[in-house]
């Protein structure tokens, strides 16, 4: 039994965190909504909701649907736009005692680039995360994140525009996640976030129509954990940059599964809705697990379950 406190700090492609647990994009608003519910000093960081060039009102209602061990969302990237984000939200966010990352989205490469250039060098931003699950208006609605060539050239273009650490968040709705991960790494990503939501749907059997106004939405929550874990395992085996695991994590045990599979850190998404203390409790549980295992730090655990 190791009596000293295990080291929890991690460096994720240049983003240094006190511990490897973050709140996921879109599930913690701009952070301030959760003041009073989350003790930010006890978590590693948070990722803002996806920021676009112009403010977006989001999709029509209904936007959410409940599922077994999970939920669908089709929020439609509702956000204040990058200018208001920098002018009004970020000044409040950087008061939060944890690392802040901005998640970036767009529907053309130029949009992504403009947002990234606007964010570059802003005080208080520890890094950027690219959400590539947005349909590309130019390419007939195919998502940037589902075609390695498209993904690679977009990431490369963005990489040249910012000195901020750049995380690329991968969509799971693909045949070959490894090809996408490699394309992102080759294009200069500093870390990969695996994964976004699975595309799903629900029907209203009373009204006889899809529940979501958008017809389909993204499935999140414990239901998707095994898929996320598999993708983290695959990606961590294929790239040499850090992987941040997301998808269905609710507890320390869940987080440990991801770290064993090769994740260097994890993000907590939907779990916050049911239990705003999830992230903090995951940190505590992870520390206890490392102590009980006689490990000196989380680095010893990363990938320790790989075969």
């Amino acid at each position: 039994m190791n009596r000293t406190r295990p080291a929890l700090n991690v460096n994720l492609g240049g983003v240094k965190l006190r511990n490897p647990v973050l709140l996921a994009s879109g599930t913690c608003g701009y952070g301030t909504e959760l003041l009073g519910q989350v003790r930010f000093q006890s978590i590693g960081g948070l990722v803002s909701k996806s920021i676009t060039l112009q403010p977006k009102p989001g999709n029509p209602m209904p936007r959410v649907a409940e599922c077994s061990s999970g939920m669908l969302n089709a929020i439609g990237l509702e956000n204040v736009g990058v200018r208001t984000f920098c002018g009004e939200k970020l000044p409040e966010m950087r008061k939060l005692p944890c690392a802040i990352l901005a998640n970036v989205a767009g529907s053309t490469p130029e949009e992504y680039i403009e947002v990234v250039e606007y964010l570059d060098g802003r005080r208080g931003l520890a890094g950027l995360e690219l959400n590539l699950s947005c349909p590309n208006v130019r390419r007939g609605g195919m998502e940037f994140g589902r075609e390695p060539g498209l993904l690679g050239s977009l990431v490369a273009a963005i990489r040249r525009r910012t000195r901020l650490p750049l995380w690329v968040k991968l969509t799971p709705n693909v045949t070959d996640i490894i090809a996408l991960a490699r394309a992102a790494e080759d294009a200069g990503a500093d870390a990969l976030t695996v994964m976004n939501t699975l595309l799903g749907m629900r029907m209203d059997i009373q009204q006889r129509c899809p529940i979501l106004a958008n017809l389909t939405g993204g499935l999140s929550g414990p239901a998707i954990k095994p898929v996320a874990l598999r993708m983290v395992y695959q990606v961590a085996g294929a790239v040499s940059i850090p992987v941040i695991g997301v998808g269905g994590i609710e507890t320390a045990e869940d987080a440990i599964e991801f770290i064993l599979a090769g994740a260097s850190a994890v993000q907590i998404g939907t779990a916050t809705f049911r239990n705003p203390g999830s992230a903090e409790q995951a940190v505590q549980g992870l520390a206890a697990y490392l102590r009980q295992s006689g490990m000196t730090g989380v680095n010893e655990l990363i990938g320790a379950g790989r075969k």
Partner: protein
Amino acid sequence: MQAGIIKARRFGPYARLVLKAPQIAQRARPGQFVEILISGKAAPFWRRPFSICRVEKTTLELLIKVVGPGSNLLANMRSGEFVDIIGPLGRGFTLRGRGGMLLVGGGFGAAPLLFLAERLRACGRQVEVLIGGHSREDLLLRSSIKLTGASVACATEDGSYGKQGKVTDLLIERLPGRKPGWTLAASGPRPMLAAVAGIAARHEIHAEVCLEKVMACGMGICQGCVIKVGGAYQRVCKEGPVFSAQAVDWNNV
């Protein structure tokens, strides 16, 4: 937070629960709600929102109508058991003005009105409460509301108690000839609230309505519960659940 149930009473499809939850009770305002994580067989994934119906120093009371698996499990809980609860959430009634207030409630929509009536009466304001429901059994909290010193009138659609008809018929009857300064507050099914909004507009009287929407987080973080208010999306759980009736786009709720 875990809150102990200290009283539980079941009647028909309804239940009243009293919970020990000092931090919530002390901060709660009428119109605010709590989110409960329900467990048990076929428990739903999301928390479930319920209006705060009344508070004492360290306790709060909820009125639950059984409509599905979550409310069913909750309504069958017994005193001595615990619930996982977050609150108080949202923005309540503004209590603006000093004049009298007409409160209009339908079904379990009466819940926040009891709390509101108590607070208004404690400020010495005149309160008249109109309660509607399908039949007698659905006229909830009548006697508790009366005990606050508010006057109560009822309407049932089947005529089994009070006026036969809709609670909004009662409202139309009672509204003319009010002194200026009177305002309206309403809580209940969507069509009733829309009707109240229309009536208030015609009578040029300020009205606030307490809305409901399926909620994934209840804390303002998911943007899943928005409605159009003043032309823009607002979150029922954060900017609401109480809105000025005039501002709500009733075609988009």
